[in-house]
């Protein structure tokens, strides 16, 4: 090395050779950069190739496998990406949902408020469960974390960014949760692929085709792919794919594709999963001294903590469970094409809130977001997202469903 160190100082006749040698040195950084770029590009492609070879299984058997799955201990990292095609649901939800509006001055550790965040963008979550009594869910933010911890009858939420905590006891949580059992408080938030899959299978009926479509590797585990598709046309949902662990039947990945193609609306899957018993300390929480703690009854949260998907996707409630969501709500159609007809005020859908008690500026903003339509029913405005569309007629009726704009107009025409 040492003699080379003076390369280029000789000059004269050996100038060109030395110049070439000088230039040759730059090959090293270029080569390193090239190899690195190639590795970064190729490794995921190589890793994802080669679906595992698993024995054939029928859709029915696979669904039974999910139902029979008794895995109670797991921990893992979940990546969830949602794209409903809303400009920014976080901000909008604030003006729509009364909980959001009243949230000013409320605790930032309130579960309902934080779970709305998941409805847009990409988030990394960590989940851990140890039996029916201990669950934990954390949203990993930049340099902060939001954790929802359930241990026995205690439910804690801790927001490290604002250093605020939220506390509920099972009684209280059970009361708040209303129809659903308190067991589901953290688990009921369908951020795990399992909960999402259950929501979909609940809605599956004669209007649905369920097939097994090959295998895949998810989080390093072999999985079957269960594809659920609406049979009727007119739905905005193209297909739902659930990857189910071949060994223990735990759903590992959930993908919801819209009917009009493009990026998945919801894509949630484990990136790491471990079915051994999680560390017991994960489920204990004592608020640090000085942390502001909001008790559930002080929080005046009008929504229950485990409202989950129903709360996240307006209309999903109607889709899944008929008219239990709101008074003055009627369901038109069935299965995937179900449309909720809500007579305002008093509905629980997302936009109808606006018609009641939203200032004029917000109303204008809403008008700008929607498309004007007219038909036999009169005229109205259609608000579109990639999944849920809503038609708000000028006479105060709202039709919401995971159906196309035409189907909504059709429903309104038939109803009038």
């Amino acid at each position, binding site marked *: 090395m040492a003699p080379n160190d*003076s390369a280029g100082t000789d000059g004269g006749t050996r100038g060109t050779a030395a110049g070439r040698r000088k230039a040759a040195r730059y090959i090293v950084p270029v080569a390193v950069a090239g190899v690195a770029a190639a590795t970064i590009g190729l490794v995921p492609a190589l890793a994802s190739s080669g679906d595992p070879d698993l024995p054939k299984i029928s859709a029915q058997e696979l669904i039974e496998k999910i139902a029979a799955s008794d895995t109670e201990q797991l921990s893992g990292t979940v990546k969830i990406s949602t794209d409903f095609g809303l400009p920014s649901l976080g901000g909008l939800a604030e003006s729509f949902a009364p909980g959001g509006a009243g949230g000013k001055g409320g605790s930032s550790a309130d579960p309902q408020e934080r779970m709305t965040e998941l409805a847009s963008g990409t988030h990394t979550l960590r989940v851990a469960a140890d039996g029916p009594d201990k669950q934990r869910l954390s949203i990993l933010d930049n340099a902060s974390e939001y954790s929802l911890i359930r241990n026995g009858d205690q439910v804690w939420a801790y927001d490290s960014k604002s250093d605020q905590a939220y506390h509920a006891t099972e009684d209280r949580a059970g009361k708040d949760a209303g129809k659903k059992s308190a067991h589901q408080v953290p688990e009921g938030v369908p951020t795990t692929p399992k909960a999402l899959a259950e929501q979909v299978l609940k809605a599956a009926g004669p209007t649905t085709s369920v097939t097994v479509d090959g295998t895949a590797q998810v989080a390093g585990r072999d999985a079957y792919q269960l594809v659920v598709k609406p049979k009727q046309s007119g739905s905005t949902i193209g297909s739902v794919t659930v990857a189910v662990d071949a060994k223990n039947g735990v759903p590992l990945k959930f993908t919801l594709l819209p009917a009009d193609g493009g990026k998945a609306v919801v894509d949630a899957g484990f990136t790491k999963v471990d079915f051994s018993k999680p560390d017991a300390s994960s489920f204990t929480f004592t608020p640090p001294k000085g942390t502001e703690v909001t008790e559930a009854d002080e929080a005046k949260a009008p929504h229950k903590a485990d409202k989950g998907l129903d709360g996240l996707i307006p209309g999903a409630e109607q889709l899944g469970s008929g008219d239990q969501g709101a008074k003055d709500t009627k369901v038109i159609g069935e299965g995937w094409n179900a449309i909720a007809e809500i007579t305002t005020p008093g509905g629980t859908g997302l936009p109808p809130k606006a018609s009641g008690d939203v200032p004029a500026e917000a109303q204008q903003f809403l008008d700008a977001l929607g498309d004007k339509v007219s038909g036999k029913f009169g005229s109205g405005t259609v608000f579109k997202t990639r999944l849920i569309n809503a038609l708000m007629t000028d006479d105060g009726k709202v039709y919401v469903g995971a159906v196309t704009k035409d189907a909504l107009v059709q429903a309104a025409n038939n109803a009038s």
Partner: protein
Amino acid sequence: MLQAEAAVAGSGRAPSPLWTFGILRSELTTTLRRWRTLALLGVLAAVPVLIGIAVRIETNDGSSPGQGGGEGGPAFLSQVTNNGLFLVFAALAVTLPVFLPMAVGVVAGDSVAGEASAGTLRYLLVAPAGRTRLLLTKYASVLVFCLVATLVVALSALAVGALLFPVGEVTTISGTRIGFGEGLLRAGLIAVVVAASLTGFAAVGLFVSTLTGSGIAAMAATVGLLITVQIVDGIPQLSALHPYLFPHYWMSYADLLRAPVYWDEVVKNLGLQGLYAVVFGSAAWARFTAKDITA
């Protein structure tokens, strides 16, 4: 021009391995004894003092900090009142985007170009060390400075935090508790990770430093590059580029405060820094070993 160097290097007298440490030691003492370096370290040490006093004054009446500002404050600031150890993390979060890399950029940019502009580079090359070894020594001393600068911030923050706020069991950002000893251990680990986060940028600074003969130009270019990259990292429309930018995963050190520790981004960060160090380090080597030294 550099016959002396060539003659000595070619004379077959292999320098002992200890010799490398000799020049590293002299390099380090020169770097760390400069008034400029001491002033930089002084500024870095003052930042935690400033934050600590500000938080203390604001929360004197028992309110929690950032009440008026709400969102947008530096990370970990709200926990500082509960546990002084969090001042270490808050101070690192405040200094990592600008102050720390700026100090590193000044030292790295100055490393070769400063010698060139002061006219001392040729004398350094006369020493029988070889250019590669000299460059490695320069890089090593910049890396040591990265660690020293980070430790200055961390230790100053620890002292101020312990003086002004209670210390004790640490609540991780996941809500679980760890003892104060383990908290200190994690703080030390975080300081090392933060220092390691700066190694990629230090290599970039070293490369820039070999390009020019003016110390000021090299420092300005290095710091300017840092600011440009930070701006690009902040533009959401360019998100496809972000994973390749050296500051992108800097804040991942916070993942060490989760329970269990979330290593993914920390590992990505260290890998990226290593890649930058290799690419720009070898580019600096290609440039420096083939360069005509005129000053």
